[in-house]
């Protein structure tokens, strides 16, 4: 490597590092200060917690709110349920649209695509009435149903693209092998879709985990609140208590970041798999 190349490599890293710092600084700032005592938060916000300024008082309050465990369980149930049914129903529909010829094929594909463009939030009031009629208010089922409906269009869209990449020969080999259409889907296609399913799972997970709106409207009861709603209400309650505010924010951020770091490889692979030659 000659001097010029070294210099340009250095410049590239400098730019990327600077942007990475910009991306992370606010998050780090919140997490860092959540471990400090009140005076230090205001006095020296840019310093790391030191033994003299370290404090967990905010977390005491956050976790003293006994419901925090149930917030997490609810969020995990809702997100998990949504991902499961979105992937199952979405891939089934994508398979039918990609593989079978029938009269309304194109119509259905366009019909499903509308949902990618329009947020269900615009239909909130009708949705609440519907959920109430179904007697599903304050159930996690209601949230899962709405989220599945919200995520199916994108899931079908992405999965159809991937479905096209599975060689036709493979499905025909399976037909020659005597598999029923159902078994071809569940035993050949579904396992092969795994990277795409991972992508869809991440795309589904982020907005569902982070959503405030539908938990607020459809399942606001105590014991049914998700972590985002719980934290939001907690913030409202302790808004002037920055120890609690920062700890609550950190509590909401950290699990998402951990999950993200674990799954980022799969996510990026899923996102970029179109480019794998």
């Amino acid at each position: 490597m000659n001097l010029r190349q070294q210099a340009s490599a250095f410049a590239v890293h400098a730019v990327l590092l600077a942007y990475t710092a910009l991306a992370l600084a606010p998050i780090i700032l919140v997490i860092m200060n959540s471990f400090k005592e009140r005076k230090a938060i205001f006095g020296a916000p840019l310093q790391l917690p030191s033994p003299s300024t370290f404090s967990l008082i905010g977390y005491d309050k956050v976790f003293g709110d006994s419901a925090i465990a149930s917030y997490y369980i609810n969020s995990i149930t809702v997100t998990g349920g949504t991902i499961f049914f979105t992937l199952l129903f979405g891939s089934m529909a994508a398979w039918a649209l990609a593989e079978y010829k029938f009269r309304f094929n194109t119509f259905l594909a366009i019909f499903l695509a509308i949902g990618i463009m329009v947020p269900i939030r615009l239909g909130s009031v009708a949705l609440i009435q519907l959920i109430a009629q179904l007697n599903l208010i304050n159930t996690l089922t209601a949230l899962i149903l709405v989220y599945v409906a919200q995520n199916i269009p994108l899931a079908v869209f992405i999965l159809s693209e991937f479905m096209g990449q599975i060689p036709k020969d493979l499905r025909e080999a399976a037909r020659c092998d005597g598999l029923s259409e159902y078994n071809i889907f569940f035993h050949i296609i579904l396992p092969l879709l795994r990277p795409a399913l991972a992508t869809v799972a991440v795309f589904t997970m982020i907005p569902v985990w982070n959503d405030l709106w539908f938990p607020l409207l459809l399942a606001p009861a105590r014991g049914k609140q998700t972590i985002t709603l719980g934290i939001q209400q907690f913030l409202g309650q302790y808004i002037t208590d920055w120890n609690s505010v920062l700890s609550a924010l950190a509590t909401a951020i950290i699990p998402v970041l951990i999950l993200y770091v674990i799954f980022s490889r799969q996510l990026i692979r899923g996102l970029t798999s179109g480019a794998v030659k």
Partner: protein
Amino acid sequence: MSEVKIENLCKAYGPVEVLKNIDLTVEDGSFVVLVGPSGCGKSTLLRSIAGLEPITAGNISIGGRQVNDLPPAQRQIAMVFQSYALYPHKNVYDNMAFGLKFARTPKAEIDQRVSEAARILQLEHLLKRRPRELSGGQRQRVAIGRAIVRKPQVFLFDEPLSNLDAALRINTRVEIAKLHKLLKATIVYVTHDQVEAMTLADKIVVMNNGRVEQTGKPLDLYYNPANMFVAGFIGSPAMNFVAAKMTQKNQLDCGAGMKINLPLPPACKVGDKVTLGCRPEHIQFAAEGKIQLKGNVDILERLGEIGYAHVSLPNGQSIVAQITGDPKVGNGAPVSLALSPTHIHIFGEDGSVCSAAAR
């Protein structure tokens, strides 16, 4: 009995006819190769036999049973795909056993059949590997193994060698030929490569534009092509064609003063426009001989013991002659060509053969 009989088969996609009135019989235990340029309908025909494509009209029966409306699995066929179509998430053993499991074959029998196939194909040490850990040739053998374990009445091969490199292709070709002998299987094999067709087939079916152009034993097609298409398709390098006109009895005028005297079949009449065909291997550099053409060498391709000379004729056409050894002629040098009179084919204006000259 595992004869495949196809009668009057037609297939159309909307107004586009891709198979037109196909009649074909694949005798029990025979190796039939469907050959033709891409888009000729050979793969569609194969897939129709497999049941992967619905047909528009006609009949397909396998082993005396009409299968027109049966799904692939019930036709007692096995197919080997060009891309091998191995299930990437299953190991070699499971790839071969997969169909049997769904047919609820007893475990012991699955084991027995798979190990038998693995033994024949020398795959025993690879059974636990995933397809992506195998070489192209090994994948090919697994795909064949998957077909064998099903004990089908008919094996269908869809261009199985086209994804292999040249050396491996020749090896595998020989393997398939041996396998055919060993299993005494009925095989329908699709390829666009006439060499594969010639070397493997008991019977070749040459297809073009959704029609069967000619059916016959390999050498029959080589020596007695029914039309210019078959004549040009079978044999490598391809047959030379020279446009000519019959000016008087037993004489052809190729233009630019080139006149050839030879006995012509009675079907040809004075004044007919015809095409004269002769394979490169039947043309030599020689000043004597009954049928002579003169021209200038454009280029010599030397392959070793033999080679090919591209020669332009005075009428502007170019023909290829096979040479042996090193004839020591430079580019542009004038040469005399001798055509073997027994290997000349005369085609009428519609492209069909007037008659092969008597051998």
